[in-house]
């Protein structure tokens, strides 16, 4: 008789435990929402962007770094930073600009014999196969000093910098053609193509804009 009683009690206790667990799960969330002033929409948005530890993002974003002269890498939807890639600017953590191999890359970006140790990165472009991103190369331009850099997505390092020999500034780069045959780079401010002085009065005759097509070897880093 006694044992049956105990059995009954346990069953009831189990049922209560299950109910409590459900309610306490709800109230823990409600407490956080109350403490942080969040509404239901906020919680859904948080859940749409939250990555538990070890979970990777669906997309990777390569953003220009503007005046930092770098490329910023972050994940979507978590919007969490993954890396800053040194491109036109020395970056000490990666030793970029502090060991000989990376100094040689930065030296490719010299203009008329002068080091230019900053850049204004504007438009990153991903290499394409049949007009689709193939995840192999990233190109980025420097608006201030007309240059394009190539980053290898195999290791996220800058491998090459090329200087436009005729532009004095640029903007419309770096856009890959559909099978990465060329990278399009358009000038920004019109200026003489040569390196001589020309009067502003001769603007219509000697100041020029242009579009440069850089031949791109999809297999090797040679522009």
């Amino acid at each position, binding site marked *: 008789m006694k044992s049956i009683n105990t059995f009954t009690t346990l069953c009831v206790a189990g049922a209560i*435990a*299950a109910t409590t*667990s459900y309610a*306490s799960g709800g109230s823990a969330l409600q407490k956080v929402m109350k403490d942080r002033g969040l509404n239901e929409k906020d919680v859904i948005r948080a859940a749409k*962007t939250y990555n538990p530890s070890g979970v990777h*993002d*669906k*997309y*990777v*974003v*390569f*953003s*220009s*770094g*503007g*005046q930092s002269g770098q490329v*910023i890498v972050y*994940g*979507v939807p978590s*919007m*969490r930073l993954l890396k*800053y890639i040194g491109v036109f600017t020395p970056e*000490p953590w990666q*030793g970029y600009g*502090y*060991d*000989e*191999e990376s100094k040689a890359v930065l030296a490719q970006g010299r203009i008329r014999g002068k080091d230019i140790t900053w850049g204004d*990165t*504007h*438009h*990153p472009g*991903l290499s*394409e196969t049949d007009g*689709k*991103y193939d*995840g192999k190369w*990233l190109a980025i331009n420097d608006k201030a000093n007309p240059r394009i850099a190539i980053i*290898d*997505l*195999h*290791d996220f390092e800058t*491998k090459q910098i090329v200087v436009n*020999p*005729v532009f004095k500034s640029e*903007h*419309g780069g770096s*856009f890959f*053609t*559909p099978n990465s*045959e060329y990278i*399009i780079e*358009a000038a*920004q*401010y019109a200026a003489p193509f040569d390196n001589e002085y020309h009067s*502003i009065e001769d603007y*219509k005759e000697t100041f020029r804009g242009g*579009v440069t*097509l850089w*031949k791109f070897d999809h297999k090797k880093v040679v522009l």
Partner: protein
Amino acid sequence: MQDLSDAGKGYSNGWGFTNSFNTEMYTGGIEEGLPPNEAGMSRNDTDFMHVYNWKKLAELAKNKKNYKLVNGHKVIPISVAVANDALFLIPEPKSPHGVDVSPDGKYITVCGKLDTHASVYSMEKIKALIKKKDYLGKDPYGINILDMKKALHGQVELGLGPLHNQYSNVDGEIYTSLYVDSQVVKWNYKTLKVIDKINVHYNIGHLCGMEGKSADPQGDYIIALNKLTIDRFVQVGPLHPQNHQLIDISGKKMDMLVDMPLPLGEPHQAVAIRTSKLHTAVRYKMGTNTKTGKTHKGKTLAGQERIERKGNQVTVYATLVRSHINPERITVNLGDEVTIYMTNLERAQDETHGFTVDNYNVHASLEPGETSTVKFVADREGVFPYYCTEFCSALHLEMMGYLMVKDPNKKYVSATKLKMKTMTKAELQAEYDKVVAVNAATDAVIQSVVAFLKANGFDKYPDVANLVTDAFDQYGQIPAQKKKADAAKKAGDMEKAILFEGMIWQYMVKTADVGIRAKDNLVKHISTKQSAAAARGDIAFDEGGCSGCHVVGKVSSGPDLTGVLGRHENGEKWVAEFIKHPEKKFNEPYVKAMIDYFKLRMPNQHMSDAEIKDIVEYFKWIDENANLF
């Protein structure tokens, strides 16, 4: 002057499109009393979109008579491009910014900052006009102009300051940034209808879709790259971070999900790619110059470390591996030109070593397998520590050495030697025996892990197999050290024998470190899947403090809990009661014996009934996989 560009694709493959501004060719001159550039350069209602055939231009550039060399660079003059039907102009709303080709290449959308409309050009119409040589006229440089009206598919009023466009996976769907309105507008470039608008914070420039400018846009999200942040984040002084905002575009209405501050520079444009399309390496082939991808001339393997001198040129061939830099002392003369080639001998993932020589403004980051060079003139006399700058291991701090720069014209007097207490022969023997015993015990642990890995087919799981390879790389260093230790012992140099035995232990610890990680990963692969309740119980077990005394698979400060449910009559009930109120069972003979043995009493951790239920489920999962612990 030129602005943004895009390459044609699909239907427009072979063509390029570039916006221009200042077709007025105004040159400013505030200092001479003239109106500023901003007024003179935006006077006309339209500027020109340049439409050019890059395939034709590339062909033209092969023939010398088609180009001029300027600064060694081939420049095709306007006249040649025009004569070969490779360059045309089409009027576009003034001061344009974005020019974006649709995924199929049939439409080109242009936004002018000062016009509230977006203009959608039809590539089919453009091609037809070119074919018929239907031109409106020529510009002063002789470039044929196509009629804007005849080339347009249509225009749509979007709002103030439209700038850039991105596409989604929905046919005809396009997203445009509105700088002045601080909005993203979703519309259809085929039906020319506005669908939805969302506010962004503030003054958006570019926007980034997921592969949104490729032939294969993915939809899902749009990121607004805002120019101003104002009040969005904690104030950090007058210079504000930038604000990238993630917008969910999977529903009918756009939904702003989250803001992200970007604290270094003002990003302009971003591109997004599916993570699954990136295939990055975690290590290089040993001795790679990562900038060229070729084998580095300074590649140095273990045992090849050396210092070479030629006149005042000193070349160091060094290696780095947990936890030492070889060589550990580099002595040079004042004025020597020093080149240090370094190879990171690691193969383990994420085992980067950094390298600097203090006060010499050099730094390298060496990823596994990489060879790099630092170079400097030793122009200051003194002693300069060098060290690994990336925390790499428990003995990272010890991973150092000295650059000693001597003035050859100076005489150095040696300082008096401090007398250190020496150990007796018996003390040395005792220390040696102790070190050897510790090594034997550590090796036994390693062997048990190895046996487990082999018995459970570790090589079927690449992540585990990689770790095992790394572990054996470390373990493989031991015989050479053992040889040295035994030789020293034979020669009666117990001091040295102890140090080499100590080095063996270092390698064993590194082996065990990676080996145990491999074992944990393997268990995850081969164990049965935890039920939701068991997974919750696993967490409750850790968070409730149970794991402070109980280690599954081992007797620790408390008994091993593998099989605990089978140890008692009505095991599940007994365990649940014991967790709930342990004190009620302290007088049961079994519990009493445990308390006597461990000199500890099971504490009441005040676990809830639900947690206890989950922990019992976790114990069931342990019993299912008892052979793995």
